[in-house]
C-alpha cells in the first residue's frame, strides 16, 4: 500500500512559493486518510453485521425446529393435572409363618376437589355429605366456594362410594389413584402389625409408611424396591394368634380384668407364635395416640412388650434354678421358712403358713416367699444380677417392633441384699411378659438363652448356656409339680395329655403415688408344655382380675390366669399338631377282637 505522506514536501514547497497555507494540504490529507479508515471499518462492520444476522437467523431457526420436534412428540405420559412425580408405593406384603396374608396393599382412589372447576359447589357439598355422613356440610361448602384451588375430600374410597361420587356429576370432583394398606384380618395381630398411614401424598399416588409394630420397624425394608415385593414372613401363626386372642378375650371378660396379655413362644428358637395384648384395635383404622387417661390403658399400648410389671412369684423358678445350678441346694434340701423374715424395717411374709421348713421343690410348689428369699441370700446379689442379666432381663427385648424400646425393665437403683431377696420372688424388678417368656424358654430348652423374635427363623440359633441341662430339667420337674400336685398353686392348669408345667405369680399393683394397692393385682401364669419335651412357652397376664369363687373374692393367679392359660393350651395345642400323651387307661367298652 502506498501511503501519501501528510506533508508531501514538493506540494508544501509549491504552496509556500504560491503564498498559500501549507497546513490546508495536511488537513486535506488527514481527512482523506480518515475517510479511508472509516470505509475500511464500515466494510468490516458490514461483514460482521451479516454474520450476526445469519447467526440470529440460524438460532431462531434452531429454536423453531426444536419447538416443532417437541410438538411432534407425544407428551411424556398422560398425567393428571397438577400431578407430580409418580411415587412408587409398592409396599411388600406381610405374611404369617404359613404364608397367609397379614398385611397387603389395595388399589383405591382418593377424592379431591378443584373448587374453581365446580359448577354447583353447594349442591356437590350436600351430595357428598349424603355419601359420607362423617363430613361436615358447612365446612365443605365453605371450602368449595372459597379461594382454594385444591381440597382433599377423602383419602380412600370404596368402589361403591366412588361410583356414588361419579353420579353426583360434578366436574370439579376428581379421583386420584393410590394404594392403601389393608389388614384383612382386622384386629388379629393388631399390636404386632402396628399400622401405617399416608405420608407423602399427591393426587396420583401416596406413600404408605409404617408407624408402629412390624410395619414401623421394617418400614425401610418393606418399601425397598430391591425387595421386588418379596413378602416379609413373620413367626406368627395366624390360626394360633386368632385362637389365643379369642380365648384370652373371653378369659379377660370372665375374670373381670381390664387388660390382658399373652405370649406363645417356641422355646428352641425364640420365635413368637402368637402375642396378644388386650384391649386391642383395628390397624386398618389405628386409633390416635392417647390424649387423656393413662397411656398404658390405651388400646395401642402393647402390654406384652411395652408393659413392664412386677411379675411376682413367676420369678421364683429363676432363683431356685440358679441355686440348683450353683450346687447350693438339691431339690430335696430343706429350707427354713419360719416367718416373718425380718430385714431391717421390712418383713417378708408368705401368703399363708406352710410349716417350719420345706424342701426346695415344695418352696416352689407352695410358692413360699420366705423360702425363695433364703435361697437368694445363699446366691448373693452379684451372682443373681449376673444370671438375670444373662437371661436378658436388664434391657428391652430385641423383638422387631418399634415399641420394643419402650419396654425397658425397671430395676432397683441400688441392688441391696433386700433387693436381692425381693427380686428372688419377683418384686422390685419390673419386666414385660415377653422378658418372662424368654426366661422360661431358657428353662424349657435345657438352659440356653433365646432372643425373642417375630421373624420366622430357618433354624434354631443356640444362645449361650446359662443353666446346665440337668438343673433346667430339675426346675421343669418342679414346675410340673406346681400344676400336677393337688396342693400346687396352678392345679387348675392341668390340661389332659399336654403335661403343662408352670408357675403362678400374683403381684400387687403399685400406686402411681407410691406404695401398693391391696385390691389390685397383676396375675401371671408362666407355663411350658409338654413338660417331658418342652417345646412351647406360654405366658398369660391379667390386669386387675377379680372373680367370685367358692364364696370368696379371688384375685390370685391360680384362680384367674391359670384357668385362662389352661383353656388357651386346650385350644392351641391341637392346632400346633401336638400329640396328646394320654396314659392308657382301661379301654372301657372296647374289646380287641382277633378276627
Amino acid at each position, binding site marked *: 500500500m502506498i501511503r501519501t505522506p501528510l506533508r508531501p514536501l514538493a506540494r508544501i514547497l509549491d504552496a509556500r512559493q504560491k503564498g498559500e497555507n501549507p497546513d490546508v494540504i495536511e488537513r486535506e490529507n488527514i481527512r482523506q486518510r480518515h475517510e479511508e479508515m472509516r470505509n475500511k471499518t464500515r466494510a468490516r*462492520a458490514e461483514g460482521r453485521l*451479516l454474520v*450476526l*444476522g445469519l447467526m440470529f437467523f440460524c438460532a431462531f431457526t434452531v429454536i*423453531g425446529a426444536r*419447538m416443532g420436534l*417437541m*410438538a411432534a412428540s407425544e407428551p411424556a405420559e398422560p398425567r393428571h393435572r397438577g400431578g*407430580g*412425580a409418580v411415587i412408587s408405593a409398592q409396599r411388600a406384603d406381610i405374611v404369617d409363618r404359613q404364608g397367609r396374608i397379614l398385611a397387603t396393599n389395595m388399589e383405591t382412589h382418593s377424592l379431591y376437589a378443584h373448587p374453581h372447576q365446580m359448577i354447583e359447589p353447594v349442591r356437590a357439598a350436600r351430595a357428598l355429605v349424603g355419601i359420607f355422613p362423617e363430613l361436615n356440610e358447612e365446612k365443605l361448602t365453605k371450602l368449595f366456594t372459597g379461594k382454594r384451588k385444591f381440597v382433599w375430600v377423602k383419602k380412600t374410597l370404596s368402589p361403591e362410594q366412588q361410583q356414588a361420587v361419579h353420579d353426583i356429576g360434578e366436574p370439579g370432583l376428581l379421583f386420584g389413584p393410590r394404594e392403601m394398606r389393608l389388614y384383612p384380618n382386622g384386629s388379629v395381630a393388631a399390636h404386632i402389625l402396628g399400622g401405617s398411614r399416608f405420608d407423602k401424598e399427591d393426587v396420583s399416588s401416596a406413600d404408605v409408611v409404617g408407624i408402629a409394630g412390624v410395619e414401623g420397624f421394617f418400614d425401610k425394608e418393606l418399601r425397598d424396591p430391591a425387595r421386588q415385593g418379596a413378602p416379609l414372613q413373620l413367626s406368627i401363626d395366624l390360626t394360633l394368634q386368632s385362637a389365643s386372642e379369642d380365648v384370652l378375650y373371653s378369659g379377660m371378660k370372665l375374670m373381670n380384668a381390664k387388660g390382658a396379655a399373652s405370649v406363645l413362644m417356641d422355646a428352641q428358637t425364640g420365635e413368637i407364635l402368637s402375642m396378644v395384648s388386650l384391649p386391642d384395635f383395628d390397624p386398618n383404622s389405628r386409633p390416635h395416640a392417647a390424649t387423656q387417661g393413662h397411656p398404658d390403658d390405651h388400646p395401642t399400648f402393647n402390654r406384652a412388650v411395652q408393659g413392664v410389671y412386677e411379675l411376682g412369684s413367676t420369678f421364683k423358678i429363676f432363683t431356685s434354678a440358679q441355686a440348683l445350678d450353683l450346687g447350693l441346694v438339691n431339690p430335696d434340701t430343706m429350707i427354713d421358712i419360719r416367718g416373718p423374715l425380718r430385714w431391717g424395717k421390712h418383713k417378708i411374709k408368705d401368703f399363708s403358713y406352710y410349716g417350719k421348713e420345706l424342701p426346695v421343690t415344695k418352696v416352689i410348689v407352695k410358692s413360699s416367699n420366705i423360702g425363695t428369699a433364703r435361697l437368694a441370700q445363699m446366691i448373693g446379689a452379684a451372682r443373681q444380677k449376673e444370671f438375670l442379666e444373662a437371661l436378658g432381663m436388664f434391657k428391652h427385648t430385641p423383638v422387631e417392633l418399634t415399641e420394643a424400646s419402650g419396654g425397658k425393665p425397671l430395676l432397683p437403683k441400688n441392688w441391696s441384699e433386700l433387693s436381692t431377696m425381693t427380686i428372688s420372688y419377683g418384686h422390685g424388678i419390673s419386666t414385660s411378659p415377653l422378658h418372662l417368656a424368654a426366661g422360661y424358654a431358657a428353662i424349657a430348652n435345657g438352659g440356653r438363652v433365646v432372643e425373642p423374635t417375630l421373624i420366622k427363623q430357618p433354624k434354631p440359633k443356640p444362645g449361650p448356656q446359662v443353666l446346665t441341662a440337668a438343673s433346667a430339667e430339675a426346675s421343669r420337674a418342679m414346675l410340673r409339680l406346681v400344676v400336677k400336685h393337688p396342693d400346687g398353686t396352678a392345679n387348675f392348669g392341668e390340661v389332659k395329655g399336654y403335661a403343662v408345667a408352670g408357675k403362678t405369680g400374683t403381684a400387687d399393683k403399685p400406686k402411681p403415688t407410691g406404695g401398693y394397692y391391696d385390691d389390685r393385682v397383676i396375675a401371671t401364669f408362666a407355663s411350658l408344655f409338654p413338660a417331658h419335651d418342652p417345646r412351647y412357652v406360654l405366658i398369660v397376664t391379667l390386669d386387675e382380675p377379680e372373680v367370685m369363687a367358692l364364696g370368696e373374692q379371688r384375685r390370685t393367679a391360680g384362680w384367674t390366669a391359670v384357668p385362662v392359660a389352661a383353656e388357651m393350651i386346650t385350644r392351641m395345642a391341637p392346632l400346633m399338631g401336638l400329640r396328646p400323651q394320654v396314659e392308657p387307661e382301661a379301654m372301657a367298652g372296647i374289646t380287641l377282637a382277633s378276627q
Partner: protein
Amino acid sequence: MTDMVYGAVPVQAGEPVLPKWWRTVDKWSLSCVLMLFGIGILLGLAASPPLAERNGFEPFHYVMRQSVFGGAAMLAMLITSMMSPLLVRRLAVLGFLVAFVALAMLPFFGTDFGKGAVRWYSLGFASLQPSEFLKPGFVVAAAWMLAASQDINGPPGRLWSFALTIAIVLMLALQPDFGQACLVLFGWGVMYFVSGAPIMLLVAMAVLVVAAGMVAYNSSEHFARRIDGFLNPDVDPTTQLGYASNAIREGGFFGVGVGEGQVKWSLPDAHTDFIIAVAAEEYGLVLVLVIIALYCAVVVRSLLRLMRERDPFIRLAGTGLACMFGVQAMINMGVAVRLLPAKGMTLPFVSYGGSSLIAGGIAVGMLLAFTRTRPQGEIGDILRGRGRL
C-alpha cells in the same frame, strides 16, 4: 451544501414530520412489533387469569393493565422512532444517567417484593425495574463512546465503555440479576465486535466466559443445580421446565384449544417467563412459529438495514439494540425448549410486565429511529448500497 450536492437523496428540509417518518421508517419491523404486542395481549387473555385469581382480582385484571401499559409502550415507541438519531442519542444518554443513578440507589430505596433480589422500586400503583430502562440507554451511551473512539483524536471510548459495562454488570450481579447482567455484557460485546474487535481478543473472551461459567458452576449451588437440570435429559416433570416441555408436547401442531390449556394453572411464571409454553399449549406450534418468525424478522431486517449505514454511532447503537432484543427473545424461548439452561428472562412485548413493556417500547423505538432510511454519504456508497440491497 450537502442538499445541493447530494440532491438525489430523498431528504428535503422542512418536510412534515409524519409523512417523512412514514416514508423512511422500517414498516416491516414496525408491523412485526405491533403484531407481537397483539399476540402478547392474546396470550395474556389465556395466561393471566390464574394469576389474577391467585391475587384476588377479576380474571382479566392483568390483561387490562397489560393493555394500558402496552398502549403507553406503543406510544413511546412511535414517538421515539420519530426522533432524529442525534436527539435519540441525547435523550438516551440523559435517560441512561438517570437509570444508572436509580440502579445505584436500589440497595437503599428498592424493594424485593419477597422474591429475594432487590430489583424494583415500588411506586404504589406499579413497580419499576430500573435495569430495564438502563439497557437501551446503556447501548446508546456505549455506542457513542465506541463510535467516538474512531474519530481522529477521539477519546479512548472503547476503554471507557468497557469500564462502564463492567460497573453495570457488577451492580446487576450484586442484586443478583445475572440475566440482565449477561444481556448488558452481550450487548456491549456485540457492539465491540461490529466496531472492529480483533479476532484474537474475541477468542480470548470466549475462553474467559467458559472459565467464568465453570467457576460459577463450582461455587454457586443455585447455578449448578440449574446447569445439572439442563444437562439431565430426564426433566423432572414437577419443575417449571417439566411443565413447560409437557405443555409444548400437549399442544402439538394446532394446540389444545383456546382456554383449554392447563399449564397456566401449574406454572407460577406462566404469564412472564414461560408464556411461550402457554402459547404452545393453547395455540400449538403454528403460533409459536409465527412468534419466532416475527422476532427473527425484526432482528435480521434491522441488522441488514444497518449494514449500509455509514454513521458508526448509528450502526453500533442499532446493532446493540437489535441484538439485545433478539437475544432476550431467543433465551426465553430457548429455555422453554430446553436448548438453554433455565434463566428467568421475559419475552419482549409478549410477557406481562409494565417496566419491561415500556422499556421495550422505548428500545424498539430507538431501533426504528436508527434504521430509518437516511442519506448515506457519497454517491458511490449509495450506489454500492443499492447494488447490495
